[in-house]
Each structure stands twice: as structure tokens, then as C-alpha cells.
């Protein structure tokens, strides 16, 4: 049988431009298989799931805060620190239920889905995804936990909220600052108490060079031991540093509750100053310190941010 010349022609070159249409068709089939049929019942169930999840989030957040502020101190952090895990659990269960409602999660579909999600997150929600992942990692690495007193960038305060995207810290001025988790990739996190109730408080005092250092050290130790806020089970240390304008003494001690750090510091200073006055211990000369400040020379090393209010 004779073969027509056109029958021997290679059509592949001709069809190449239309192959992407076939691909689209194939993707459509996958898409149809990936998504289950929509129905009103499913939509209502999904809405109910989201409502329950939202309600649970709110209830757990409220209950955790309410309970933790009413129980004894040593249970406060224990209760607060469980909050992110409860939230994560609710989130996982909610997503699992929604996927179960709307998706057919076969092996191939899962592959396609993750690819799509990866592309979407990579372009549209890059920072959000980064924060979520950082938040999950932070749950296990624990650079900060609920109830910790942390310093990130210029912000210092107690971690009072742990969300999907970031944390909320309450500053000493009673402002709530939200910091995304992904800051932990690049910024240093200074944690004062790392899950404990106590956090060290450093209180600085300044004296003239000829002040009786032994007497000052003795008074500072006694100031710490006598303060009602002091956790006596933890070490109390006084360290000295010599500056050209005078002598700097730093009292390092721990209050029983890190929340009391500023009132504790005030109590220490007040007690110590009463005793300094009694013994007439000389402070550095004001004129000398004014000269130093006028010359623009730093009076001392800048106090660490945790020291300041």
C-alpha cells in the first residue's frame, strides 16, 4: 500500500506549541481529583470548624491568662508556657479537619499541593511563612517563652502573647509591642529569666575614690539580704569597677518574682541610701562628673538595657 507523502511528515514540530494545552488539561484533572466536590453541608461544616477553632483560641488565651494570674507564683509560668502548644494543637487539628473536608490527600495530590503551597508562600507570604516557621522552631529551642522577660532590639518586657506570627511583649511603660518570630533569625534575644520566676537585677551605685569600699560592700550585701523581695536562695554578689571620676559598685541579686524588678531595685536603692547617709559615705564630686559630661566623655560604660526602666 502506497503511503501518501503527507503521511510521512513529522507533525511533532507542528504540535509542540499546543502541548501546553494538554498540560493544562492534565493539571485540571489533577485539580479535580485534589479538590472534593463542594456542597453546602461541607461549607457549613468548615465554617463550624473555623468558628470552634477561633472560639477555642479565644477561650484558651483568656483562661490561661485568668488562671495564671490567680494561682500561686510557681504555677504561673507553667500555665503560661503551655499556651503556645495549646494554640498549635488547635491549629493543627483545624487544618487537618479542613483538609479532610475539601481535599483528597493521595500521595500524588499531596505532592502537588505542597508544591503549590511552597510557590504561593515563597512569593506572596514569604515573611509570614518565615515567621510561622521561626515560631514553631522557637517553641522547641525556647529563646523566649510565655512569661519570660526579654530584650529584642530596643524593646524590653514580659512576653504576654505567643501567636502564630509573633510575640507580644509588655514593656515597663505598659505598652504592648508585637515582634515577629522571624526576628530571631537575625536579632539577638536577651532573656532575663529563661522560664524561671527569678531574674537578676543589677543595681549600680557611685562613690568617690576615697569612700570606704568595705563599708559600702557590707551595706550593699545587707541591703539585698534585708529587702523583702530578695530571693535568698540565689547568690548575691557585689562587684566594683574603678572609673577616673570615682568608684562604681554593682549589686547583683534576684527578686523572688522577676515582675518586681523595678520596685525591687527601688527598695534596694532606698535602703542603701539611708545607710550611706548614716555613715556619711562620699559620693563622686558633682563638678567632676559635670566636667566629664561636658567633655562628652562617657561617664561610665553605658548601662545594659536590662538595667534601665
Amino acid at each position, binding site marked *: 500500500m502506497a503511503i501518501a507523502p503527507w503521511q510521512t511528515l513529522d507533525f511533532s514540530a507542528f504540535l509542540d506549541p499546543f502541548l501546553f494545552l494538554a498540560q493544562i488539561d492534565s493539571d485540571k484533572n489533577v485539580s479535580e481529583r485534589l479538590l472534593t466536590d463542594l456542597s453546602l453541608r461541607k461549607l457549613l461544616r468548615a465554617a463550624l470548624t473555623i468558628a470552634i477553632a477561633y472560639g477555642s483560641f479565644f477561650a484558651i488565651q483568656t483562661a490561661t491568662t485568668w488562671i495564671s494570674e490567680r494561682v500561686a507564683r*510557681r504555677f504561673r509560668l507553667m500555665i503560661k508556657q503551655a499556651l503556645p502548644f495549646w494554640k498549635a494543637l488547635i491549629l493543627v487539628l483545624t487544618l487537618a479537619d479542613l483538609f479532610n473536608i475539601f481535599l483528597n490527600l493521595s500521595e500524588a495530590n499531596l505532592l502537588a499541593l505542597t508544591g503549590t503551597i511552597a510557590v504561593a508562600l515563597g512569593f506572596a507570604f514569604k515573611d509570614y511563612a518565615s515567621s510561622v516557621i521561626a515560631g514553631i522552631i522557637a517553641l522547641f529551642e525556647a529563646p523566649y517563652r510565655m512569661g519570660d522577660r526579654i530584650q529584642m532590639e530596643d524593646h524590653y518586657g514580659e512576653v504576654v502573647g505567643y501567636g502564630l506570627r509573633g510575640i507580644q511583649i509588655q514593656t515597663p511603660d505598659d505598652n504592648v509591642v508585637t515582634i515577629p518570630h522571624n526576628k530571631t533569625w537575625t536579632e539577638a534575644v536577651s532573656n532575663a529569666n529563661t522560664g524561671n520566676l527569678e531574674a537578676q537585677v543589677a543595681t549600680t551605685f557611685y562613690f568617690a575614690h576615697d569612700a570606704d569600699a568595705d563599708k559600702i560592700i557590707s551595706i550593699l550585701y545587707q541591703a539585698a539580704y534585708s529587702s523583702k523581695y530578695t530571693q535568698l536562695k540565689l547568690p548575691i554578689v557585689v562587684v566594683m569597677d574603678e572609673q577616673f571620676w570615682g568608684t562604681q559598685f554593682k549589686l547583683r541579686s534576684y527578686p523572688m*518574682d522577676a515582675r518586681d524588678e523595678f520596685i525591687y531595685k527601688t*527598695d534596694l536603692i532606698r535602703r542603701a541610701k539611708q545607710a550611706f547617709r548614716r555613715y556619711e559615705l562620699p559620693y563622686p564630686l558633682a563638678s567632676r562628673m559635670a566636667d566629664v559630661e561636658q567633655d562628652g566623655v562617657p561617664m561610665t560604660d553605658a548601662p545594659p538595657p536590662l538595667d534601665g526602666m
Partner: protein
Amino acid sequence: MIQGFMWSVRQTVQSWFSQAQATVSETEEELVPLPDVLENQLAQKIRALPSPEIYQSFIREELAIAIETWQQNLDAPNSLVFLGSPVEPIAAILNDGLRQWSDAPVNIITPLPCMARPEDPLVSIQQIRDALDPYTQLDPDNQEDADEQLDPDSLDARQTVVLIPCLEQCFLRCIGGWEGIEYLRDVAIHHRHCFWVIGCSHWAWNFLDFVCQVSAYFSEVKSLPELNGEVLKEWLDPVVKTVIAAQAQTEEDGDRPDYWHSLASKALGVSSIAVNIWLQSLRIDPELVADGDKSPDLNLASDNPEGEELILHEVKPSLPSFPSLNHGDRYLLHSLLIHGRMTRAHLAFSLGQREGQIQSQIQALLRTGLLERNDGCLSVQPSHYVRLKTELANNNFFVGDD
């Protein structure tokens, strides 16, 4: 933290079991608590009783052994510290114990007989110096070098016991407030020819150990024994027998061991707590207190054999309900437990506050019954001690080891 938690769990479980074992009176609901007047009269009767004999014999036995060792061995410790609960009258117990020690092999001197803190706590060291001054045995000019090798003949000179029945009254938690303790500590270590007997509460001792390491100087420390139900009954019997309905004492369970066991368990074996719980477990017929114009008088058979006896009833002993506390209350109560009895001015000074600032707190705590006021001094009501200790431990305060 875990130890504190386990302690509170143990207390709770023990209280469940002791509640289960307690005898429940069928007439409990028909009776009413004692009026304050009656309760005070009974409390006075109990205060007149000597300390429990088991405390006294314990003190004498331990002292006899320690003094004998000290008199025979040059390097033996020259001190013995008796610790008790902060609500226990340790000074009275020590005084009772030594008063009954008829064949004491030594001369006992008491330069600081449960003194009150001076108005200015900073002069407490001077007060202690003045108190020790009349005693030539404690002359600062004749003190020994603590590291010096003693002459064996000096054992014969070991005839003096210095009794300090209430160490917590010798300090205040403020700058310079425990210089007196440091002075005493140094005198004791430099006068090894004197034996030092010290009474103190666990809480004060723990505090002083933190701030001036007293345990390093006074190594021999004994805690008062816990009282069991039988001992408690024996101690309180002179009062109990005169007021409790006769039928309760002649029931088939006779001495009601379950009641006394339950009482001892709830009181953690501490006499003052047991007394308060016992008083609170007493009930009276409501008809006897119904007449508002005339409160019943405690007319004990022993006082007036011909008078009409007032019969009371015991119900299941239980700890009083514990009021909720705020942070300020906890600091105040913690300070009181460290210092024992103290005036309002001293309490304010130790807290670093003015008297006016704590006045409202004190009034509120007095009203809830957590505090009591005697002779111008404040102290913690003993029946609340058990729960207060748990409360403070749970709030990260250091507590005594009692």
C-alpha cells in the same frame, strides 16, 4: 520547687486521710461554735498549763548528753540550738524544760530572757552587749582565740550554761539589724568555757543562716519532736476533762484516739496549732448562748465544785478556711513568721514601709483571723500556719524546714 510541690501534695493527702479517720459527731449540726469570751477563758486555762512533758524531757535529755560531752572533751561543740515552729512558744518551752531540771550539772544564766526588740533596731547590738556585761564569764577581755589549743585543765572550769531562749527577738531584717547576732556568734565561739543553749524558730534560723551563716558557728541543732495524738491528749486532759461532755469520754472508744490522732495530724504535731484547732472544734448548745444579755461563764467543775458545770462538745477537728491573700499580705506575713512576735513599727521597718502604709493591711488581716494581737505585738494565728506555709512556699518564698 519540686520539693515544695511534693510537700503540699503530701499535706493534702494526709489531710484527706485524717479527715476520713476523724469521728463525726451526730449532733454536730445542732451545736454552735463557742462565743469569744468562752474561747478566751479556755485559752487562758491552757496557757497556764506547763509545756508538753515530751518537749521538756527531750530538751533535758539532749542537753545532758551535749553538756556531758562538752565537759569531757576539749574540742566538743559548746552550743546546742533547739528549733521549733514559728508559732510555737519556744522560749516558754525551754524555760519550762530547764526549770524542771533539778539535777542540772551546771550553772544556768539567762542574760537575754526573751527580751523585746529595742525601739531602734540598730541599737540591738548595744542591748545585747549590755545584757552580757554583768557576767564575768562572758567578759570580752577574757575571750579565747578560737584556734588556740586549750589547756586540758580548763575542762574543770566548764560549769556555765548561757541560755538564750528566743533568738528571733535579737534581730530585725534591716541593714544593721542582725549585728547583734553576729556579735553573739563571735562571743560564743570565743568563750568555749561557756555552753550556749539557744531557742529559735526554723524560719528565723534559716534566715540567719542565709545572712550570717549561724549554722557554721552553732553546728548542733535539734528540732523539737512532733506531738502525737496520745501525747496531745495527755497534755490537754486537765482542761479537756473539765469541759467536754462526760458521755463523749465514756463512749466505747474511750479516749477517742481517732479524734486526737486527727488533731495531731492536722496540727503537724505542733502544740500551739493543736490547741487552736481544738478550741475551734469545740461546740456549745445554742440554747446556752441564745440569751444575748448574759453570756455563759466558764464554770469548770475543778474551779467551783458546787457550781453548775458548762458542758461543751468536740466536733471533727479541721483547719480554718484560708482567706485569699495579695502580694503585699504575703510579704507581711512572711516577715512576721521570720521574726515571731513583733510590733507594728518593727514590722513596717522590716518591710521598708511606713507604719501608715501597712496599717490597712494589718487591720484586714486581723479581721480575717490570720493575725492576732497580744500585748501590743502582732503574730500569726497558729491554726492558719499550716496553710500559710504552703501558700508562701507556692509563691516562691523561702520557708522553714519544720
